[in-house]
């Protein structure tokens, strides 16, 4: 009994100390960025390298003197890819250190939930490569930024590539494409674009959902074996990807006819399968694996060289690591752009950072100066278009590494823009939002 009361007393003491310390003092000297990541749970193997890349880039910027002298301070919170936990993390972190200047939610579910809250909190949400595709429309979604690409871009580029492989859009008629997708908002995002393209060019889209967490795919691949689609698009996450590849090996489906979206084409997905995954293609949103890029070398020297690396050295330059670093870079550049207008060397608020993110103009020269030259193509945004021109290419796993096997593609604006506009208008009507007019933009 004595031990019990002692234990309870100790717990209350620690608890009191922890909770009263609560949100730290508003030190408006540092630029604060909350980091929502997941290093545990079913999606940890893919979330961890992303988080390492993100945090390493922030450390790198600090090591190089910060944002014109302003140091970045960050805090990580583990969301475990769960929406409720993600919302709690967001609420807990957003008010610290004088207020968050931007947030990246790294999960489509959490993105949807935080989208409802961010306008009141005035914190821009960067969803580089995920989130709602219609949030590209900046007039309806003033606080969302799907920079560098979203899922409709991905679907469109994949279909363009297939058409190129086949020899032309007309050769697509009668072909069968199976979409093996994670049964969640993330997995369902590409369906409208694929169906639109299927209508335009006469190919058939077969939808094969896989229930979370995606370890049960035997029936899915037996159906693929029966239907013999010409191509399989994989829209999975976490362990679902490697299981899909293993099942493809087990049922004898040729891996070189499989194309994975950028979240389904990274090292954790294929390393386990090794030689079995040889020939598997992935979509590379701007970047792929870049062990030799200038930014990789810079980070290795400035961060890992000083023993400050967040993850293992071998991970630097891998696909998901680069995505984390790139996402961080886009956010940082948004803040820097805001500083150009609102005062260099000052800490930026969420509203000011939003302006910066809406007026990004990263041309090739700037990217080269940042060390991202081979990694990316230019990104520029506007008030109306929160994504800008999105580039992607195909990379293929050769058994031991990812190598680029195509040129740069861009989504077809004539198909993409109307769909985005229509979907955003539907959202605005449902939520009774009046879209911003271009005149409001220079706020």
């Amino acid at each position: 009994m004595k031990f019990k009361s002692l234990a309870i007393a100790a717990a209350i003491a620690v608890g009191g100390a922890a909770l009263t310390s609560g949100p730290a003092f508003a030190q408006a000297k540092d630029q604060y960025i909350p980091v929502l990541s997941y290093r545990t749970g079913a999606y940890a193997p893919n979330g961890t390298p992303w988080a390492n890349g993100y945090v390493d880039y922030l450390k790198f910027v600090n090591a190089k003197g910060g944002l014109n002298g302003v140091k970045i301070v960050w805090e990580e919170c583990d969301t475990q890819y769960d929406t409720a936990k993600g919302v709690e993390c967001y609420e807990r972190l957003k008010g610290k250190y004088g207020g968050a200047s931007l947030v990246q939610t790294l999960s489509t579910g959490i993105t949807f939930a935080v989208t409802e809250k961010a306008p009141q909190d005035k914190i821009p949400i960067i969803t580089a490569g995920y989130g709602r595709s219609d949030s590209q429309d900046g007039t309806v979604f003033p606080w969302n930024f799907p920079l560098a690409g979203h899922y409709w871009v991905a679907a469109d580029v994949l279909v363009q590539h297939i058409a190129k492989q086949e020899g032309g859009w007309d050769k697509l008629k009668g072909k069968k494409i199976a979409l093996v997708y994670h049964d969640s908002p993330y997995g369902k995002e590409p369906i409208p674009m694929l169906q639109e393209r299927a209508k335009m060019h006469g190919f058939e889209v077969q939808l094969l959902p896989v229930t979370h967490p995606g370890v049960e795919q035997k029936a899915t691949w037996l159906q693929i074996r029966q239907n013999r689609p010409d191509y399989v698009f994989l829209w999975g996450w976490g362990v679902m990807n490697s299981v899909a590849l293993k099942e493809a090996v087990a049922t004898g489906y040729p891996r070189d006819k499989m194309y994975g979206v950028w979240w389904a084409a990274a090292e954790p997905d294929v390393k386990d399968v090794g030689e079995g995954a040889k020939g598997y293609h992935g979509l590379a949103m701007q970047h792929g694996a870049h062990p030799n890029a200038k930014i990789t070398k810079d980070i290795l020297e400035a961060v890992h060289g000083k023993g400050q690396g967040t993850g293992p050295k071998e991970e630097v330059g891998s696909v998901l690591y680069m995505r984390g670093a790139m996402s961080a870079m886009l956010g940082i550049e948004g803040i820097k752009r805001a500083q150009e207008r609102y005062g260099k060397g000052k800490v930026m608020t969420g509203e000011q950072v939003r302006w910066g993110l809406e007026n990004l103009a990263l041309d090739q020269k700037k990217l080269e100066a940042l060390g991202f030259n081979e990694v990316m193509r230019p990104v520029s945004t506007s008030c109306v278009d929160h994504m800008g021109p999105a580039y992607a290419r195909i990379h293929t796993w050769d058994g031991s590494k990812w190598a680029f096997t195509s040129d740069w593609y861009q989504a077809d604006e004539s198909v993409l823009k109307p769909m985005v506009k229509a979907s955003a208008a539907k959202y605005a009507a449902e939520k009774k939002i009046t879209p911003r007019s271009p005149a409001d933009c220079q706020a």
Partner: protein
Amino acid sequence: MLYRENGQFKTSYRADLQIFPIAQDRIAIVALLAVAFVVVPLVADQYYLRAILIPFLILSLAALGLNVLVGYCGQISLGTGAFMAVGAYAAYNFFIRVDGMPMLAAVLLGGLCATAVGVVFGIPSLRIKGLYLAVATLAAQFFVDWAFLRITWFTNDAPSGSVGVRNLSVFGLPIESPVQKYLFTLTVVVVFALLVKNLVRSAIGREWMAIRDMDVAAAVIGIRPVYAKLTAFAVSSFVVGVAGALWGFIYLGSWEPAAFSIDRSFQLLFMIIIGGLGSIMGSFFGAAFIVLLPIFLDQALPALGTAVGLRLDTAFVSHVTIMIFGALIVFFLIVEPHGIARLWSTGKEKLRLWPFPH
């Protein structure tokens, strides 16, 4: 000395049958409600309101509903997440599709839809008992999970299947700021707690408890098991459905079926076991324990780490949080298998005698 009933004589049946017969209890409850309604909104900061109190209140409502089914009627159900989901999506559909539907009505209608679904999935309980029933209710959980992902009518044909609501208001008052949301949730929870408390004190509640204790004997003395079990499922699903609608509307704002997954069902079951089966107060205690503990550990562990000079990374903190959570549950079950409510009533018993030993 403080908690005596001396001098409190009841002069009417009505007074004798009240929920809190002891005056000190009444005073304590009134004080608690006063603090909750008046003091907390003035004092608590936004984070505590939005991320701690509101989820605590909504989940204690859901735990209340589950307690009716498991604690009072003895039917183990692992499909609570499904009923929350039905409540949430039904409320969403009423809110969106019917012009001018007030939010409160939508939430209550959502609860009614959950009732219908609950009764349907409660029918197997007439034949299956115990652990087999628990696993059979998982059929409800997974079916509902699938239904809201696949049947796009439920999600208003949203391309991604995620739905959200905005511009909430009750009787013309907006429910936008954390304080307004908190007060609205608190009102709903208090009203429902009162309703459920009176329900379990009435004839139907006694029927439930008879079925729980010895269902064959209950049937022998004339209690109809069909009526009792299905009403338990109905009432429980209604409360859980309303809680689900509140979870989606008030707390998350925008949700997908994964928000009501099997983890939610397990979480609610933990709450009522730790809090105390068959006890209204137990639902609140359990909800507080389960909601606050992970958040507390998430903040306390890094603080502890820096106190001893270690920088703990978030994966380690998450894993240790889960470990401590699991260990504490086992510890609690060993120390007090009847839950915190039993500890509370034991405490009150001792308080009645204090400062005397007997």
